[in-house]
């Protein structure tokens, strides 16, 4: 396959940046999208040019590091997968592909396609945890949890923090990411103890980072590689309303 790529190039966070066009040839349909960029980069290095910088790590869809908007869709056109799991057979010979970084005030571009997602870390640090004194490992099943509840908590826990929800949302809202953690921990007995403080602090941090507000468009759910549901956003709203009405945090 031969492809024409329009890729966002930006030297550093202060650079204005712009699109550059590249031709790649002899791309195998069995290559992953990232391998296709690897091929381009080898070419660029040989020519003495700066390779295209992009984030990646596991390349098997579990770390959430790979982040790029491909033809206007975070992680490309396929449902329920990350960019590293996207294969070139999803494209056709001669296609023109535009590749952009996540776009959000809270995710400033560091270089080319790499953005700074530490805003997500700070949201988790604000309350996305359970405070326990670590000791010996507790016995399995010492706290009974109903299967349906465990399932729903696991669905929320699938979030890999990639940021596609923010990238897809017209408001650059981080509500799906934030609510997945709020919802997961609110469902489980271990998380219930701190639920009020958690939701208040995490939502506060999310807004302080400069993410937009949710308009319930559902774009996040549609683009999430782990297909996390809007149900968790609704639960986070319930948690928030309940915490604001009942918490001791005056």
């Amino acid at each position: 396959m031969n492809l024409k790529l329009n890729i966002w190039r930006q030297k550093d966070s202060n650079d204005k940046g712009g699109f550059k066009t590249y031709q790649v040839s002899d791309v195998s349909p069995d290559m992953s999208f990232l391998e296709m960029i690897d091929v381009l980069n080898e070419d660029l290095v040989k020519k003495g040019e700066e390779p295209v910088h992009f984030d990646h790590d596991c390349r098997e869809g579990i770390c959430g590091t790979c982040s790029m908007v491909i033809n206007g869709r975070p992680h490309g056109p396929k449902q329920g997968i990350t960019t590293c799991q996207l294969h070139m057979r999803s494209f056709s010979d001669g296609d023109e592909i535009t590749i952009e970084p996540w776009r959000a005030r809270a995710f400033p571009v560091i270089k080319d396609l790499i953005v700074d997602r530490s805003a997500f870390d700070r949201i988790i640090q604000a309350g996305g945890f359970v405070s326990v004194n670590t000791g010996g490992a507790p016995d399995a099943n010492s706290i009974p949890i109903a299967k349906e509840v465990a399932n729903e908590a696991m669905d929320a826990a699938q979030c890999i923090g990639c940021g596609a929800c923010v990238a897809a949302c017209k408001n650059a809202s981080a509500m799906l990411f934030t609510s997945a953690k709020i919802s997961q921990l609110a469902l489980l007995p271990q998380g219930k103890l701190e639920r009020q403080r958690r939701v208040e602090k995490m939502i506060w941090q999310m807004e302080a980072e400069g993410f937009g507000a949710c308009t319930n468009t559902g774009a996040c759910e549609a683009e999430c590689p782990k297909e996390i549901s809007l149900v968790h956003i609704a639960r986070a709203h319930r948690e928030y309303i309940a915490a604001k009405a009942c918490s001791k945090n005056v």
Partner: protein
Amino acid sequence: MNWFISALTSGVGRKVIMALTGLFLILFLIVHLLGNLQLLKDDGGQAFNVYSHFMAHNGLIQLISKLNFFFILLHAFVSYTLYVRNKKARPVGYKVNGAAANSSWSSRSMTLLGTLIFIFLLVHLQGFWYAFKFGSGIPTVTIDGVEMHDAYKWVAEAYANPLISGFYVFSMIVLAFHLWHGFSSAFQSLGLNHVKYTGFIKALGYAYAIIVPGLFAIIPIVLYLKR
């Protein structure tokens, strides 16, 4: 009080205000529609005139109407603050935007649709509310010994103008799109999303978004054809 203000001014709190005021307006529209449908009665406007007279002279209705004005302004004002915040959250946009593949047009156009509704409301209130309350030259009729505004005649004359009736029909289409997303969105904002009932709420919302603006739009069409 501090916690209360901070709750209501947070992004989530503003969404709750949007949802509560939106749902109030949804209920209000049903009452408004039931009144308006009397314009279609073939009685020379008698039923509509009696109804209008009652609405304008009942203390409770007048109180609710004040509240309604307040909620519309609150809904519009809060939506504007969210719009500004949301625009700021993405200073650099995408070159290629694939939003059509992941969300509905109406859900992405709530601000545009709401603004058009707001313009409609200004025109509507100027013509049919301000004119009755403070204007002069409204024709009167006497029904059962009570002299009252001939609201029917005033409305029918307005709708005889194709520009006015056309504007009303267009605005009802805009309202339909606003509610196509807005109805179920309000429940989501209040945290009400569950497999047990969300399907029903969505279906009810789509039905409401078609039937209520649809019936509103039929009135100017019929009165225009009868002119």
